């Protein structure tokens, strides 16, 4: 399913409800749901933050794919893919490695970069493309890789 969301933090609640309905319908485990919601928020907020004046909405698509003997078999594995499209924004490659020192003492810590750091660690796959002003991020997380 795909939906457009206004470029605002006020979209976070409807964005959560949109994805949660899809995840619930497909009986996605909490261990996949949590990182999917987290990635979706971090990526969406990033687009809002770095491209605040772009007039277009942000398009979000959530799909669930199955593998296994029966598509609705509880034992089959399920993979959730979240795609966010930001048309008209600046380039921001979320797959680029950024140095976040998670071992630093408290006085040296800053919150900057934590969101992207989390996404990169939680994703099974993370892809980014940018062409003609159109940025697209694809985050994929599957059952069997529930680490949160």
């Amino acid at each position, binding site marked *: 399913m795909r939906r457009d969301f206004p470029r605002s*933090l*006020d979209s*976070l*609640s409807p964005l*959560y409800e949109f994805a949660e309905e899809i995840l619930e319908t497909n009986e996605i485990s*909490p*261990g996949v749901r*949590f990182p999917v*919601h*987290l990635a979706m*928020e*971090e990526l969406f*907020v990033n687009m809002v933050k770095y491209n605040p004046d772009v007039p277009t909405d942000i398009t979000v698509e959530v799909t669930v794919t199955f593998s296994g003997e029966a598509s609705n078999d509880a034992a089959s594995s399920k993979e959730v893919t979240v795609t966010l499209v930001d048309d008209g924004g600046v380039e921001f490659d979320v797959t680029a490695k950024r140095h976040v*020192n*998670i*071992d*630093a*003492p*408290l*006085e040296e*810590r*800053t*919150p900057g970069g*934590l*969101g992207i*750091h*989390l996404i990169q*660690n*939680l994703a099974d796959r993370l892809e980014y493309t940018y062409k003609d002003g159109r940025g697209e991020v694809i985050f994929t997380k599957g059952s069997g890789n529930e*680490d*949160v």
Partner: protein
Amino acid sequence: MFEIEYGDNGEVVCRGRLDAAQCEKAQGFMDGLVGASTLDFADLEYISSAGLGILLKTQKRLVGSSSGLRIINVNNHIRDVFRYSGFHTIFDIEAKE
């Protein structure tokens, strides 16, 4: 939905989802904390990096005055986010039983 208030024993009770849209509310409350404080996350379902930023800012302020935050009843998902962020080394954290 996100709620933050004092519990019966003086702990700070957080409920719901602490996402980027709720930061102003959370920060406003946290800015009022003085001295060693306990955050009860028993009913906190979710936190993103925006929420982590508030915890970090508050911890820095409180540690600067020789106190700090203790976070109790942390669910598995949030605990792992703390671990990925290295927060388990700078906060006193107790997992949910």
